């Protein structure tokens, strides 16, 4: 998996690329640990580069979201498409998190 971080004001934008499955969740978990460790609590995850997500991946996202929430922060998603978008919608994750089409829209809130 590849993670690219950019900063916009106090918001951290993380571009996630690759496959998020049972094998790569450890990478995602390690990445999400750095967000709070670096003091970023407002995070937008750009999933436009994400090819695949499994139920284990959903759980990692959930864990990250819970930690951010515990730190009075927030986690929003944007750029979902194809299979990932379907999984989000089927699993109800689309209803649980703020979802946006693009990064700009997500920043606008």
């Amino acid at each position, binding site marked *: 998996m590849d993670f690219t971080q950019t900063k916009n004001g106090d918001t951290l934008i993380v571009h996630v690329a690759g496959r998020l499955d049972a094998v790569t969740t450890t990478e995602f978990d390690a990445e999400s640990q750095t967000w709070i460790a670096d003091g970023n609590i407002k995070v937008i995850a750009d999933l436009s580069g994400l090819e695949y997500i499994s139920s284990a991946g959903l759980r990692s996202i959930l864990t990250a979201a819970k930690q951010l929430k515990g730190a009075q922060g927030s986690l929003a998603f944007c750029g979902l498409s194809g299979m990932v978008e379907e999984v989000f919608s089927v699993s109800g994750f*689309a209803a649980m998190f703020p979802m946006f089409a693009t990064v700009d829209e997500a920043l606008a809130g």
Partner: protein
Amino acid sequence: MKRHGIAFKLALLILSCAFIIVAVIMGYNYYYSRGIILQQAQTNAKSVAHETTSRIDSVLSGVQKVANNIALSMEDASLTKEDILELNKRVLANNPEIYGMAIAFEPYFLESDKLYFAPYHYRSGGRIGFSMLGDPAYRYFYMDWYQVPKELERAVWTEPYNDEGGGNIIMATYTVPFYRTMDGKKVFAGVVTADISLEWLEDMISDIKLFKTGYAFLLSRHGTFITHPTRDYIMNETIFSLAEELGSSQLREIGRKMVEGDRGFTQLDKTRGAEDRYLYYTGLEYGGWALGVLFPKGEMLADVHRLSWIMGLIGLCGFFVLALVIIYIARRITHPLTELSSAALEIASGNLDLKLPEITSRDEVGDLAESFRVMNTSLKTYIENLTSTTAAKERIESELRIAREIQMGILPKLFPAFPEREEFEVYASIEPAKEVGGDLYDFFFIDDTHFCFLVGDVSGKGVPAAFFMAVTKTLLKVVSERGMDPGDIITKVNGDLAAENESCMFVTLFLAIIDIETGETRYANAGHNPPIFMPCGGTPKWIPPFGEPVAGIMDMMEYSTKTMTMAPGDIMFIYTDGVTEAMNQEQKLYSDERLMELLTNMKEPFAPKVVKAIDESIKVFAEGAEQSDDITMLAMQFMGKCDKK
């Protein structure tokens, strides 16, 4: 190739070096000392030769002086016959080196009536003998000793000769011409001769010893041997006749130089198997004689050779001592190595308790032995750890296997599940992935006419997922009561699961309850992927999701229930994402499209047939790729109310 040990290689290398060094030292020493000895021998020969020649020259010059003085005094015309005889005798008596002396006058010179006048005094048995030379048989003025100085008008030494009359001794004679003035003219008057025996010369020269067999010899003006250790040569051979006999041009050349009075040092060519010899030669001042000093090279170099031999012997002894020392040291080094090597081999074969050889030397070998000991200990500890870890792992794996069996055991596996029921046909299968997963399905009667069936998928894998699955399944069974809607059931289960869910586990659920008399089906979906509804004779279609979230996270979530009606022959196919996300070797997904296509083209669908066909299709698609997720399918086919009742 033969295998050689370190000891052998070390010894070979060092000894080769030592051998070369010793050889170079000895060789240099030999040539250097040889040069010195040769130079010394030359100097020695020179000084011996010069000493000898100067002794001979002093004798000869003494004789010459005496003869010259007599000759000078003979020019006095007032001398009487008596005076001359007296002078002759006295001079001989006073000069012991002179053997005999004659004063020979020209015929009729002193007395006009006497043809001969030549008094001769000589030594004989300790006395002085006298005779008057000249008679018709011995006309002395024709003899060489008379004629040569007369003609040359100067004093000469005769060639040495054997004086056969006077005791067979070798003699040489010095003759000096003398003149008298008559009528104002200087006329030849006669010669004075002084004989010397060459016996003393022989004695003197044979005393010269150079090394063991070196010797000296004397040559006359014409190259005749005057003295030589080989007595036959004396007066019989010349150096030239010897050269002719030996066929040696070198000797001829040397002879030529010697009679010319040259000096030189040369190595003689080998002739007649003789050993190498050196010759020093020098001319004498008087008599035209030449002295040669000859000495063999072998004897000259005997000392050098002996020195070389002794050095060689010492070198050889040193060589052997060195060899022994090297072998000893090499053995001392390699012996522990050999022991260590065999110990290592035995340890490698598994005997870790082998007692290592005691090596106490405080050097690299000792370090090696110490490292080896440490390695052995670490290896032992490591293997012990590994053994216990492996045992623990095996225990855990075995426990996991048992857990899996238990997990699978709580799912209904017996088909046909309700053979006595003709109103519906239910069939399910679960293909577990290698790792323990969290898929579940279940079906059971809530009351006589209401049949509940469900499929769920717990997030993640492993023991936590298995636990969560077991809890979910148990809760579902317990919660499902008569009269409850599927949404209510999921809402209640969700609440229970979410209450104590620190680890963010969740489960997707599709739960339906069918009235087996009417076909009315109520269903709820908590984040599960949409099932497929296959109407009898119609085109299959997805049952759209409501977008309600997975269960287990949000405890206050309310799930809704929807209702549809199944006609006889209709099938509801519920599955987990293990089906559509099954992957082949190229990591391509099985996909919704493939699933839908398969179901659309299926002839005369029947619940067990549907499940088995999809299962078969997935296996073909995966091409043996390892299954990453559980594959769970459930097909529920409604047959309608049994009319037989």
